[in-house]
C-alpha cells in the first residue's frame, strides 16, 4: 500500500495518423521498444488504445495496425514487469469471450494484464456490429454495468488453489473449487465458468474511462483504476473526492481504487515544466497519478523517461523501479498475488 506520497504513472499509446506503408514487422518492433523503454523506467503500465473502428476513407490510416488484445499478447512476451492494459469494446465482444481473452492475457503476462472499458458509446462502432441504431444512453449504461459484473464474476470462477495436477490420483482439478456463474440478466445470460485458470494477480485490473456523472456509482463499485479527462484542477479534485466517497460508501477501501488524470505532454517544453505541472496537479487534486497520452513514437517516450522522470524522482514523487511482479502490485491494489 502506498502512502499517497508517490504517483502512479501510465502511458497511453494513442493511434494517430501516419503512413500505413511502413510494414507490420518493424511496426511491432517499434512498439516493443516503446514498451521496453517504459518498463526500464519502472512505469506502472502501458495502455493500448483501440480506436473505435471508423467508417470512411481514412479508416486504414491508423498509427497502430493491430487490434489491442492481440498486441497485448505479443508485447507480454517481450516485457517482464510492466503492466499491459488493452481497450476492448463491450459492443465488439460477448462478455464470455472478452473475460476469457483477458484471463488468458493475464496468464500469458504472468499477472500484468488489464482491461480498459469505456462507459462512452462509440456510435460509429455500432454500424459494424449489426446495431445500426446503437443503444439508448440508458440501455448502454445498464448493459455495460451488467457486462462488467459478468466479466468480473467469470474472472473469479476458479479458486486460486483449484488446480491439483495430481497425475497418480487422476485429479486434475478440484471440482468444488470451480464455480458456475449462472448469470441471468436483462441483456445477457451466461452460465460459466471460464475455461481459463485463475489469474496470477487474482484477477485482471479493470480500468474505466469515459464516465459521466451517472456512471460514478458503477465505477466506484467495480473499477480498480479510473481515468479522468484533463480538466481544471478544482473540477478534477471534486470528481476525485466524489469517487473516493462513493468507493467508501460501497464498503471498499478508498485506496483500492486509483484515480489517474489524463495528461497531454507539452512537447518541446522544458522537462522541468512538465514535472512542475504534474507535481502541482498531483498535490492540488489529490489524484493518484497520471495517464500520459502520447503518440506511439519512440521520441515521445524517450523524452518523458529521460527528461521528465528523473526530475519527478529527484522530488521523490515517483518510486524507483518495481517492488512486485504484477500490475496489481505496481498499483498498490489488494490481491496482487506476489506480496
Amino acid at each position: 500500500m502506498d502512502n499517497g506520497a508517490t504517483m502512479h504513472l501510465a502511458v497511453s499509446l494513442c493511434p494517430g495518423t501516419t503512413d500505413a506503408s511502413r510494414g507490420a514487422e518493424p511496426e511491432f518492433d517499434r512498439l516493443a521498444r516503446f514498451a521496453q523503454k517504459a518498463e526500464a523506467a519502472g512505469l506502472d503500465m502501458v495502455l493500448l488504445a483501440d480506436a473505435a473502428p471508423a467508417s470512411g476513407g481514412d479508416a486504414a490510416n491508423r498509427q497502430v495496425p493491430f487490434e489491442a488484445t492481440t498486441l497485448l499478447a505479443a508485447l507480454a512476451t517481450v516485457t517482464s514487469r510492466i503492466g499491459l492494459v488493452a481497450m476492448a469494446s463491450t459492443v465488439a465482444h460477448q462478455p464470455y469471450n472478452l473475460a476469457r481473452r483477458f484471463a488468458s492475457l493475464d496468464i500469458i503476462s504472468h499477472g500484468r494484464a488489464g482491461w480498459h472499458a469505456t462507459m462512452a458509446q462509440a456510435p460509429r462502432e455500432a454500424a459494424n456490429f449489426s446495431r445500426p441504431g446503437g443503444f439508448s444512453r440508458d440501455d448502454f449504461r445498464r448493459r455495460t454495468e451488467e457486462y462488467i459484473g459478468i466479466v468480473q464474476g467469470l474472472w473469479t470462477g476458479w479458486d486460486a488453489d483449484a488446480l491439483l495436477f495430481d497425475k497418480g490420483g487422476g485429479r486434475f482439478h478440484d471440482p468444488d473449487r470451480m464455480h458456475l456463474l449462472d448469470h441471468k440478466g436483462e441483456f445477457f445470460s451466461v452460465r460459466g465458468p471460464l475455461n481459463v485458470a485463475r489469474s496470477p494477480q487474482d484477477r485482471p485490473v479493470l480500468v474505466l474511462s469515459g464516465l459521466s456523472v451517472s456512471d460514478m456509482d458503477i465505477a466506484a463499485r467495480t473499477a480498480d483504476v479510473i481515468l479522468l479527462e484533463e480538466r481544471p484542477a478544482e473540477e478534477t479534485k471534486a470528481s476525485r473526492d466524489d469517487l473516493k466517497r462513493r468507493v467508501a460508501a460501497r464498503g471498499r477501501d478508498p485506496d483500492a481504487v486509483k484515480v489517474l488524470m489524463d495528461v497531454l505532454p507539452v512537447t518541446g517544453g522544458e522537462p522541468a515544466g512538465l514535472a512542475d505541472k504534474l507535481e502541482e496537479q498531483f498535490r492540488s487534486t489529490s489524484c493518484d497519478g497520471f495517464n500520459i497520452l502520447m503518440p506511439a513514437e519512440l521520441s515521445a517516450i524517450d523524452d518523458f523517461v529521460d527528461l521528465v522522470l528523473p526530475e519527478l524522482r529527484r522530488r521523490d514523487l515517483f518510486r524507483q523501479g518495481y517492488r512486485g511482479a504484477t500490475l496489481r502490485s505496481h498499483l498498490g491494489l489488494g490481491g496482487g498475488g506476489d506480496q
Partner: protein
Amino acid sequence: MTAASRQMKLGAFLWATGHHIAAWRHPQAHVTAGIDIDHYIQLARTAEAAKFDLLFCEDAAGLREADVGIASQTSRSIGFEPISLLSALAVQTSRIGLVSTASTSYNEPYGLARTFLSLDHLSGGRAGWNLVTSASQIEAANFGSTGLRPHADRYERAREFAEVVTGLWHGKLDGTSGSGHDGQSFSVRGPLDLPRSPQGAPVMVQAGASDVGRDLAARTADVVFTAAQTFEEAKAFYDDLKGRLAAYGRERDDIKIMPGVAPVVAETEAEAREKYEELQELIPDDVGVALLSSYLSIADLWRYPIDGPLPELPATEGMQSRQALVIEQSRRDNLSIRQLARHFAGARGHWRIVGTAAQVADELQARFEGGAADGFNVMPSYFPGELDAFATLVVPELQRRGLFRKDYEGHTLREHLGLRRPA
C-alpha cells in the same frame, strides 16, 4: 506441380496436455501446459524447426464436459484462449503458420475479421481462421438462454458470416455508400481500420463434415481438416469435397485437405505399442464413456451396460458426421461401449498409427499418394514428448522420401500451403 514433386502439408495440432484424453497423467506429459506460456513457445519452435506448415489450435468457449466430476479428471477444462496464445507465439516465431479456431455462432464478423487480420500483421502473413459453428450445449449456455441453435441455422449464419469476413479482408466492404452488408444475421458497413493482409487475406480453414458443412468448405475454405479412420473413408471424403469445388468456380488444388492423424511413434514397434498401452491404461472408464457420449451427442450413455453394444441413437443437432463415424465403427468392428470409449478417447475419432517412423511414413505416404489427403494434421498424444518424437523420427523419414520440405519455400502461410494470393 508434377506428381513426383508434390509434397505433403503438415499441421501441428496443439491441444491441452496432449490429444490422448489421459495424456496429462503420463509421467512425461507437461501437466501445467494450460498455464505455462513458455511451454507453448517451446512447442512452436520445435514445430517450426521441423518445418511444419502450421500450428493449429482448436477451441470451445466453455467446458468440454457437462459433468464436473468427469471434467476434473481431464486437463481440458483450463487452457489459453487461442487468439491470445497465437498472438504471443506470432512474435516468438518467424515462419510457421498460426491457425486458430473461432466460432461463427458466438462472434460478430467485423470483430473476428479485425482480430485475425491483426494476428496476420503481427506474424507477417502467417494467420489462419478455422471456422466452426460450435455444436456444444455447454458453449451455448455461455451466450444466452435459448440453447443450441439447429444445425441448419448455424450453418446459414456461418455462410453469411464468412461472406462478411472475406468481404472485409478483400476490401469489398469499404464503407462507401451501397457497399455495406445488410443481411439476415449481420449488418456491417466496413471498412476494417487495418491495412490489407500481408498474404492477401488470412487463410480460411474449415472442418465441417456434414453435407452443408462440406458445401460451405467448398465455397469458402483454403484448408479442410477432417477425421477419417480408414483409407476408404478418407478417400471418399477427399473425392467428394474436391468434386464440389467446380460448382463454385474453383479448382481442385484450391483446397488442401488435411485429415487428422494420431501417431504413436518410437524407435521400435514394440516400444511404440508399449507407449500406446501405457496411455490407454490411464483412461478412467467414466471419462472414456463421457467423451464417447459427447461425440454421439447423447447425455445418458452411462445408463447402458459398458460391455454391451451401442444403443440405437436418435438423429442429432450436434456433430452429425462424428456420430455417424462412431456408429459405423462400432458396427464394423463389433465393439462394446467400453472398447469404443477407449478407442475414441485415445485418438478422438481420428486415425491412429502405432509404430516406427518408417511404418508411420508408409501409412501417410499411402494416403497421400493414394489421393486421400494433401497433408495431415498431426495430433501428438502428449506434449512435448510426442511432438518431439514426430519431429525427430517421422519428419526426417518423410524428407528422405522427398515427401516433405527440408526448408520453407516462402514466408507466409499461403506460400507454405501453395495457395493463391487473393486479388
